[in-house]
Protein backbone atom coordinates (compact mmCIF):
# COMPACT_ATOMS: atom_id res chain seq x y z
CA UNK A 1 0.00 0.00 0.00
CA UNK A 2 1.06 3.54 -0.66
CA UNK A 3 1.92 5.86 2.25
CA UNK A 4 2.31 9.06 0.21
CA UNK A 5 -1.42 9.96 0.04
CA UNK A 6 -1.80 9.31 3.76
CA UNK A 7 1.17 11.48 4.60
CA UNK A 8 -0.24 14.19 2.32
CA UNK A 9 -3.62 13.97 4.07
CA UNK A 10 -1.92 14.43 7.41
CA UNK A 11 0.14 17.43 6.26
CA UNK A 12 -2.77 19.10 4.52
CA UNK A 13 -5.05 18.59 7.53
CA UNK A 14 -2.41 19.97 9.88
CA UNK A 15 -1.89 23.19 7.91
CA UNK A 16 -5.63 23.55 7.19
CA UNK A 17 -6.50 23.14 10.87
CA UNK A 18 -3.87 25.69 11.88
CA UNK A 19 -5.29 28.26 9.46
CA UNK A 20 -8.87 27.48 10.44
CA UNK A 21 -7.97 27.77 14.14
CA UNK A 22 -6.46 31.23 13.85
CA UNK A 23 -9.34 32.50 11.72
CA UNK A 24 -11.99 30.52 13.59
CA UNK A 25 -11.02 31.65 17.09
CA UNK A 26 -11.01 35.27 15.93
CA UNK A 27 -14.41 34.88 14.28
CA UNK A 28 -15.76 33.12 17.37
CA UNK A 29 -14.61 36.05 19.49
CA UNK A 30 -16.41 38.50 17.22
CA UNK A 31 -19.59 36.39 17.12
CA UNK A 32 -19.57 35.84 20.88
CA UNK A 33 -18.85 39.40 22.00
CA UNK A 34 -19.66 41.93 19.30
CA UNK A 35 -23.16 43.12 18.45
CA UNK A 36 -23.64 44.10 14.83
CA UNK A 37 -26.21 43.71 12.08
CA UNK A 38 -25.51 40.70 9.91
CA UNK A 39 -24.07 38.69 12.80
CA UNK A 40 -26.52 35.82 12.32
CA UNK A 41 -25.95 35.90 8.57
CA UNK A 42 -22.18 35.65 9.12
CA UNK A 43 -22.82 32.74 11.48
CA UNK A 44 -24.91 31.05 8.78
CA UNK A 45 -22.22 31.54 6.15
CA UNK A 46 -19.56 30.04 8.40
CA UNK A 47 -21.78 27.11 9.37
CA UNK A 48 -22.99 26.30 5.84
CA UNK A 49 -20.01 24.05 4.95
CA UNK A 50 -21.26 21.62 7.62
CA UNK A 51 -24.47 20.96 5.71
CA UNK A 52 -23.81 21.81 2.08
CA UNK A 53 -23.03 19.01 -0.38
CA UNK A 54 -19.27 19.12 -1.08
CA UNK A 55 -20.05 19.71 -4.74
CA UNK A 56 -21.99 22.88 -3.94
CA UNK A 57 -19.27 24.15 -1.63
CA UNK A 58 -16.59 23.26 -4.19
CA UNK A 59 -18.58 25.00 -6.92
CA UNK A 60 -18.72 28.27 -4.98
CA UNK A 61 -15.09 28.03 -3.96
CA UNK A 62 -14.17 27.65 -7.63
CA UNK A 63 -16.08 30.86 -8.26
CA UNK A 64 -14.15 32.64 -5.54
CA UNK A 65 -10.61 31.37 -6.06
CA UNK A 66 -10.70 30.03 -9.65
CA UNK A 67 -8.13 31.20 -12.22
CA UNK A 68 -10.42 33.86 -13.67
CA UNK A 69 -11.39 35.41 -10.34
CA UNK A 70 -9.81 38.38 -8.55
CA UNK A 71 -8.51 36.17 -5.76
CA UNK A 72 -7.20 33.62 -8.24
CA UNK A 73 -5.39 36.26 -10.31
CA UNK A 74 -3.81 37.86 -7.25
CA UNK A 75 -2.65 34.46 -6.05
CA UNK A 76 -1.15 33.67 -9.42
CA UNK A 77 0.59 37.04 -9.59
CA UNK A 78 2.20 36.48 -6.20
CA UNK A 79 2.76 32.71 -6.14
CA UNK A 80 3.42 32.19 -9.84
CA UNK A 81 1.12 29.18 -10.11
CA UNK A 82 -2.64 28.86 -10.03
CA UNK A 83 -4.33 28.24 -6.71
CA UNK A 84 -6.83 25.69 -7.95
CA UNK A 85 -5.59 22.15 -8.47
CA UNK A 86 -2.60 22.77 -6.20
CA UNK A 87 -1.67 21.55 -2.76
CA UNK A 88 -2.73 24.95 -1.43
CA UNK A 89 -6.23 24.32 -2.77
CA UNK A 90 -6.32 21.05 -0.84
CA UNK A 91 -5.39 23.02 2.27
CA UNK A 92 -8.12 25.57 1.51
CA UNK A 93 -10.67 22.76 1.12
CA UNK A 94 -9.66 21.30 4.47
CA UNK A 95 -9.69 24.69 6.19
CA UNK A 96 -13.17 25.60 4.92
CA UNK A 97 -14.46 22.20 6.01
CA UNK A 98 -12.84 22.48 9.45
CA UNK A 99 -13.78 26.11 10.12
CA UNK A 100 -17.41 25.68 11.25
CA UNK A 101 -16.49 23.01 13.79
CA UNK A 102 -13.91 25.30 15.35
CA UNK A 103 -16.09 28.44 15.27
CA UNK A 104 -19.15 26.69 16.72
CA UNK A 105 -17.26 25.09 19.56
CA UNK A 106 -15.09 28.12 20.37
CA UNK A 107 -18.05 30.50 20.28
CA UNK A 108 -20.10 28.34 22.63
CA UNK A 109 -17.15 28.16 25.03
CA UNK A 110 -16.60 31.93 24.90
CA UNK A 111 -20.26 32.65 25.57
CA UNK A 112 -19.95 30.51 28.70
CA UNK A 113 -17.25 32.76 30.15
CA UNK A 114 -18.66 34.94 32.93
CA UNK A 115 -18.89 38.49 31.50
CA UNK A 116 -18.03 40.01 34.87
CA UNK A 117 -14.54 38.53 34.48
CA UNK A 118 -14.13 40.59 31.32
CA UNK A 119 -15.56 43.60 33.14
CA UNK A 120 -13.05 43.05 35.94
CA UNK A 121 -10.21 42.81 33.42
CA UNK A 122 -11.32 46.11 31.88
CA UNK A 123 -11.49 47.97 35.19
CA UNK A 124 -7.98 46.67 35.93
CA UNK A 125 -6.74 48.37 32.78
CA UNK A 126 -6.90 45.60 30.17
CA UNK A 127 -8.11 46.69 26.74
CA UNK A 128 -10.17 44.39 24.51
CA UNK A 129 -7.12 42.73 22.93
CA UNK A 130 -5.41 42.01 26.22
CA UNK A 131 -8.54 40.68 27.90
CA UNK A 132 -9.21 38.49 24.83
CA UNK A 133 -5.83 36.81 25.10
CA UNK A 134 -5.47 36.73 28.89
CA UNK A 135 -9.04 36.02 30.05
CA UNK A 136 -11.41 34.98 27.27
CA UNK A 137 -9.02 32.66 25.43
CA UNK A 138 -7.60 30.74 28.42
CA UNK A 139 -11.06 30.31 29.94
CA UNK A 140 -12.55 28.93 26.73
CA UNK A 141 -9.53 26.76 25.97
CA UNK A 142 -11.33 23.44 26.45
CA UNK A 143 -14.07 24.29 23.98
CA UNK A 144 -11.53 25.58 21.49
CA UNK A 145 -9.45 22.40 21.83
CA UNK A 146 -12.53 20.26 21.30
CA UNK A 147 -13.40 22.25 18.16
CA UNK A 148 -9.85 22.06 16.84
CA UNK A 149 -9.85 18.28 17.28
CA UNK A 150 -13.13 17.91 15.41
CA UNK A 151 -11.94 20.32 12.74
CA UNK A 152 -8.72 18.36 12.26
CA UNK A 153 -10.60 15.09 11.91
CA UNK A 154 -12.97 16.74 9.43
CA UNK A 155 -10.12 18.24 7.36
CA UNK A 156 -8.35 14.87 7.37
CA UNK A 157 -11.44 13.17 6.01
CA UNK A 158 -12.36 15.66 3.31
CA UNK A 159 -13.13 14.13 -0.07
CA UNK A 160 -15.58 16.16 -2.12
CA UNK A 161 -14.34 19.71 -1.67
CA UNK A 162 -10.75 18.61 -2.26
CA UNK A 163 -11.80 16.80 -5.45
CA UNK A 164 -13.69 19.87 -6.70
CA UNK A 165 -11.00 22.51 -6.18
CA UNK A 166 -7.72 20.59 -5.83
CA UNK A 167 -8.42 17.64 -8.12
CA UNK A 168 -7.07 14.14 -7.75
CA UNK A 169 -3.48 14.48 -8.90
CA UNK A 170 -1.29 11.61 -7.59
CA UNK A 171 1.71 12.96 -5.72
CA UNK A 172 0.31 16.49 -5.61
CA UNK A 173 -3.30 16.65 -4.44
CA UNK A 174 -4.28 13.02 -4.11
CA UNK A 175 -5.00 12.73 -0.40
CA UNK A 176 -5.78 9.50 1.40
CA UNK A 177 -9.52 9.84 0.92
CA UNK A 178 -9.08 10.26 -2.84
CA UNK A 179 -6.50 7.51 -3.15
CA UNK A 180 -8.88 5.08 -1.46
CA UNK A 181 -11.56 5.91 -4.02
CA UNK A 182 -9.12 5.29 -6.89
CA UNK A 183 -7.96 2.02 -5.34
CA UNK A 184 -11.52 0.76 -4.95
CA UNK A 185 -12.36 1.75 -8.56
CA UNK A 186 -9.30 -0.18 -9.75
CA UNK A 187 -10.16 -3.25 -7.66
CA UNK A 188 -7.03 -2.83 -5.55
CA UNK A 189 -8.96 -3.85 -2.48
CA UNK A 190 -6.03 -4.68 -0.18
CA UNK A 191 -4.49 -1.26 -0.81
CA UNK A 192 -7.82 0.51 -0.17
CA UNK A 193 -8.33 -1.48 2.99
CA UNK A 194 -4.90 -0.61 4.36
CA UNK A 195 -5.36 3.09 3.74
CA UNK A 196 -8.91 3.04 5.09
CA UNK A 197 -7.66 1.42 8.27
CA UNK A 198 -4.96 4.06 8.73
CA UNK A 199 -7.38 6.93 8.01
CA UNK A 200 -9.97 5.59 10.43
CA UNK A 201 -7.31 4.97 13.07
CA UNK A 202 -5.92 8.47 12.67
CA UNK A 203 -9.33 10.11 12.99
CA UNK A 204 -10.28 8.13 16.08
CA UNK A 205 -6.85 8.77 17.61
CA UNK A 206 -7.24 12.53 17.03
CA UNK A 207 -10.71 12.62 18.56
CA UNK A 208 -9.60 10.47 21.49
CA UNK A 209 -6.53 12.60 22.16
CA UNK A 210 -8.65 15.74 21.99
CA UNK A 211 -11.12 14.42 24.55
CA UNK A 212 -8.29 13.35 26.85
CA UNK A 213 -6.64 16.74 26.57
CA UNK A 214 -9.87 18.59 27.34
CA UNK A 215 -10.53 16.35 30.33
CA UNK A 216 -7.05 16.87 31.74
CA UNK A 217 -7.29 20.65 31.29
CA UNK A 218 -10.74 20.66 32.88
CA UNK A 219 -9.23 19.36 36.12
CA UNK A 220 -6.46 21.95 36.00
CA UNK A 221 -8.46 24.45 38.06
Amino acid sequence: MSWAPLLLSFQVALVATTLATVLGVGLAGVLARARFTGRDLLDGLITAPMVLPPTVLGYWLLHVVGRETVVGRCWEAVAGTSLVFSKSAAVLAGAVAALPFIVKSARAAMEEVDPTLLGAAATLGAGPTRSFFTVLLPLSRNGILAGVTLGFARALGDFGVTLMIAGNIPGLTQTGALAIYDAVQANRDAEAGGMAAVMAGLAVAALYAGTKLVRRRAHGW
Partner: protein
Amino acid sequence: MVGDAGVLSVRAVVPGAKPDRPRLDVRLSFDVGLTAVMGRSGAGKTTLLLTIAGLVRPATARITLGDAMLDDGAAVFVPPHRRRTALVFQTLALFPHLSAWKNVAYGLPRGPDDRDRALAWLKRARVEHLADRAPSTLSGGEAQRVALARALASEPRALLLDEPFSALDASLRAELGAELAALVKSLAIPAVLVTHHHEDAQTLTSSIIELEAGRVRA
Protein backbone atom coordinates in the same frame (compact mmCIF):
# COMPACT_ATOMS: atom_id res chain seq x y z
CA MET B 1 -0.85 57.84 45.93
CA VAL B 2 -1.10 58.95 42.32
CA GLY B 3 -1.52 62.56 41.31
CA ASP B 4 -4.78 64.35 40.64
CA ALA B 5 -6.82 62.26 43.04
CA GLY B 6 -10.02 64.11 43.47
CA VAL B 7 -13.72 64.32 43.70
CA LEU B 8 -15.81 61.90 41.69
CA SER B 9 -18.78 63.70 40.21
CA VAL B 10 -21.55 61.77 38.51
CA ARG B 11 -24.51 62.99 36.51
CA ALA B 12 -26.05 60.05 34.68
CA VAL B 13 -29.29 58.78 33.25
CA VAL B 14 -29.41 55.11 32.28
CA PRO B 15 -32.70 54.18 30.59
CA GLY B 16 -34.57 51.13 31.81
CA ALA B 17 -36.89 48.71 30.08
CA LYS B 18 -39.82 51.07 30.58
CA PRO B 19 -39.34 54.67 29.44
CA ASP B 20 -40.87 56.22 32.58
CA ARG B 21 -38.73 54.13 34.93
CA PRO B 22 -35.01 54.67 34.40
CA ARG B 23 -32.49 52.21 35.79
CA LEU B 24 -30.59 55.18 37.09
CA ASP B 25 -31.11 58.95 37.18
CA VAL B 26 -28.71 60.62 39.58
CA ARG B 27 -26.62 63.69 40.26
CA LEU B 28 -24.01 62.79 42.86
CA SER B 29 -20.64 63.77 44.14
CA PHE B 30 -18.21 61.55 46.06
CA ASP B 31 -15.45 63.15 48.11
CA VAL B 32 -12.16 61.51 48.89
CA GLY B 33 -12.86 58.78 51.45
CA LEU B 34 -15.46 56.10 51.84
CA THR B 35 -19.08 56.80 50.92
CA ALA B 36 -21.82 54.23 51.37
CA VAL B 37 -24.59 53.71 48.82
CA MET B 38 -27.63 51.92 50.15
CA GLY B 39 -30.97 50.85 48.76
CA ARG B 40 -33.13 47.86 47.98
CA SER B 41 -32.23 45.45 45.24
CA GLY B 42 -33.21 47.00 41.94
CA ALA B 43 -32.62 50.51 43.29
CA GLY B 44 -29.76 51.04 40.85
CA LYS B 45 -26.77 50.56 43.15
CA THR B 46 -24.87 48.17 40.90
CA THR B 47 -25.85 50.17 37.80
CA LEU B 48 -24.32 53.24 39.44
CA LEU B 49 -20.99 51.45 39.93
CA LEU B 50 -21.01 49.99 36.41
CA THR B 51 -21.76 53.44 35.02
CA ILE B 52 -18.86 55.03 36.88
CA ALA B 53 -16.56 52.21 35.71
CA GLY B 54 -17.69 52.69 32.10
CA LEU B 55 -19.15 49.18 31.79
CA VAL B 56 -22.62 50.67 31.28
CA ARG B 57 -22.93 53.63 28.98
CA PRO B 58 -25.55 56.17 30.13
CA ALA B 59 -27.84 57.99 27.72
CA THR B 60 -27.16 61.30 29.43
CA ALA B 61 -23.97 61.81 31.34
CA ARG B 62 -21.37 64.05 32.82
CA ILE B 63 -18.86 62.07 34.86
CA THR B 64 -15.63 63.59 36.10
CA LEU B 65 -12.90 62.24 38.36
CA GLY B 66 -10.55 64.88 39.70
CA ASP B 67 -9.76 66.97 36.67
CA ALA B 68 -10.38 64.13 34.21
CA MET B 69 -13.56 64.09 32.11
CA LEU B 70 -14.66 60.44 31.86
CA ASP B 71 -17.96 60.90 30.03
CA ASP B 72 -19.47 64.15 28.79
CA GLY B 73 -22.51 62.46 27.27
CA ALA B 74 -21.30 63.26 23.77
CA ALA B 75 -17.87 62.94 22.18
CA VAL B 76 -15.91 62.02 25.30
CA PHE B 77 -16.38 58.48 26.60
CA VAL B 78 -13.28 57.11 28.25
CA PRO B 79 -13.42 53.28 27.89
CA PRO B 80 -13.35 51.26 31.14
CA HIS B 81 -9.74 50.14 30.77
CA ARG B 82 -8.53 53.73 30.74
CA ARG B 83 -10.62 55.04 33.66
CA ARG B 84 -8.62 53.60 36.55
CA THR B 85 -11.81 52.98 38.48
CA ALA B 86 -11.18 49.57 40.03
CA LEU B 87 -14.38 47.68 40.73
CA VAL B 88 -14.71 44.88 43.27
CA PHE B 89 -17.67 42.88 42.01
CA GLN B 90 -20.20 41.26 44.29
CA THR B 91 -19.03 37.89 42.97
CA LEU B 92 -15.42 39.17 43.31
CA ALA B 93 -14.70 38.03 39.74
CA LEU B 94 -11.27 36.62 40.54
CA PHE B 95 -9.75 35.05 37.44
CA PRO B 96 -10.17 31.30 38.07
CA HIS B 97 -7.21 30.32 35.89
CA LEU B 98 -4.71 32.55 37.72
CA SER B 99 -3.20 32.12 41.17
CA ALA B 100 -3.86 34.76 43.82
CA TRP B 101 -0.66 36.71 43.13
CA LYS B 102 -1.22 36.59 39.36
CA ASN B 103 -4.71 37.97 39.91
CA VAL B 104 -3.18 40.87 41.81
CA ALA B 105 -0.41 41.31 39.24
CA TYR B 106 -3.01 41.55 36.44
CA GLY B 107 -3.78 45.17 37.17
CA LEU B 108 -0.27 46.26 38.16
CA PRO B 109 1.41 48.77 35.94
CA ARG B 110 3.81 46.57 33.94
CA GLY B 111 7.27 46.07 35.30
CA PRO B 112 9.91 43.43 35.94
CA ASP B 113 9.22 42.90 39.64
CA ASP B 114 5.53 41.95 39.19
CA ARG B 115 5.59 39.20 41.75
CA ASP B 116 7.23 41.27 44.47
CA ARG B 117 4.84 44.15 44.00
CA ALA B 118 1.85 41.78 43.94
CA LEU B 119 3.11 40.14 47.13
CA ALA B 120 3.41 43.55 48.77
CA TRP B 121 -0.27 44.20 48.07
CA LEU B 122 -1.26 40.74 49.30
CA LYS B 123 0.70 41.51 52.46
CA ARG B 124 -1.20 44.75 53.00
CA ALA B 125 -4.41 42.73 52.69
CA ARG B 126 -2.85 40.16 55.07
CA VAL B 127 -3.06 37.22 52.66
CA GLU B 128 0.56 37.00 51.49
CA HIS B 129 0.66 33.33 52.44
CA LEU B 130 -2.04 32.56 49.84
CA ALA B 131 -0.06 33.93 46.90
CA ASP B 132 0.19 30.67 44.97
CA ARG B 133 -3.30 29.38 45.67
CA ALA B 134 -6.01 29.11 43.04
CA PRO B 135 -9.12 31.26 43.73
CA SER B 136 -11.32 28.16 43.90
CA THR B 137 -9.38 26.98 46.97
CA LEU B 138 -9.86 30.23 48.94
CA SER B 139 -12.48 30.81 51.64
CA GLY B 140 -14.93 33.69 51.23
CA GLY B 141 -12.94 36.03 53.44
CA GLU B 142 -9.63 35.11 51.79
CA ALA B 143 -11.02 35.62 48.30
CA GLN B 144 -12.43 38.95 49.44
CA ARG B 145 -9.00 40.11 50.58
CA VAL B 146 -7.36 38.98 47.33
CA ALA B 147 -10.00 40.81 45.30
CA LEU B 148 -9.43 43.97 47.32
CA ALA B 149 -5.65 43.67 46.92
CA ARG B 150 -6.12 43.23 43.18
CA ALA B 151 -8.30 46.31 42.92
CA LEU B 152 -5.92 48.48 44.94
CA ALA B 153 -2.83 47.21 43.12
CA SER B 154 -4.09 48.71 39.87
CA GLU B 155 -3.51 52.13 41.45
CA PRO B 156 -7.08 53.27 40.93
CA ARG B 157 -8.14 56.89 41.14
CA ALA B 158 -11.49 55.73 42.48
CA LEU B 159 -12.47 52.46 44.13
CA LEU B 160 -15.89 50.90 43.58
CA LEU B 161 -17.12 48.13 45.86
CA ASP B 162 -20.31 46.19 45.15
CA GLU B 163 -21.47 44.58 48.41
CA PRO B 164 -18.04 43.09 48.95
CA PHE B 165 -18.88 41.72 52.39
CA SER B 166 -22.26 40.21 51.62
CA ALA B 167 -20.99 36.63 51.80
CA LEU B 168 -19.16 37.05 55.10
CA ASP B 169 -20.28 36.58 58.69
CA ALA B 170 -20.69 39.61 60.96
CA SER B 171 -17.34 39.51 62.81
CA LEU B 172 -15.30 39.02 59.64
CA ARG B 173 -17.29 41.79 57.98
CA ALA B 174 -16.44 44.23 60.73
CA GLU B 175 -12.76 43.27 60.63
CA LEU B 176 -12.44 43.55 56.85
CA GLY B 177 -14.50 46.72 56.81
CA ALA B 178 -12.17 48.43 59.28
CA GLU B 179 -9.14 47.39 57.22
CA LEU B 180 -10.78 48.62 54.06
CA ALA B 181 -11.57 51.98 55.63
CA ALA B 182 -7.95 52.33 56.75
CA LEU B 183 -6.61 51.44 53.30
CA VAL B 184 -8.91 53.87 51.54
CA LYS B 185 -7.90 56.60 53.95
CA SER B 186 -4.22 56.00 53.23
CA LEU B 187 -4.82 56.17 49.48
CA ALA B 188 -6.82 59.40 49.58
CA ILE B 189 -9.18 58.44 46.74
CA PRO B 190 -12.98 58.43 46.54
CA ALA B 191 -14.37 55.00 47.35
CA VAL B 192 -17.99 54.00 46.81
CA LEU B 193 -19.21 51.15 48.99
CA VAL B 194 -22.51 49.59 48.00
CA THR B 195 -23.95 47.76 50.97
CA HIS B 196 -27.25 46.79 52.50
CA HIS B 197 -25.92 46.62 56.05
CA HIS B 198 -26.77 49.77 57.98
CA GLU B 199 -24.12 49.10 60.59
CA ASP B 200 -21.40 48.84 57.95
CA ALA B 201 -22.50 52.06 56.40
CA GLN B 202 -22.64 53.89 59.72
CA THR B 203 -19.42 52.64 61.27
CA LEU B 204 -17.21 52.70 58.17
CA THR B 205 -18.22 55.67 56.13
CA SER B 206 -18.52 59.39 56.51
CA SER B 207 -21.60 59.79 54.38
CA ILE B 208 -24.48 57.64 53.20
CA ILE B 209 -26.46 57.96 49.99
CA GLU B 210 -29.74 56.15 49.63
CA LEU B 211 -31.05 55.13 46.24
CA GLU B 212 -34.64 54.29 45.48
CA ALA B 213 -35.96 53.30 42.05
CA GLY B 214 -32.84 54.65 40.38
CA ARG B 215 -32.96 58.04 42.09
CA VAL B 216 -31.36 59.54 45.16
CA ARG B 217 -33.79 59.41 48.06
CA ALA B 218 -34.28 62.86 49.49
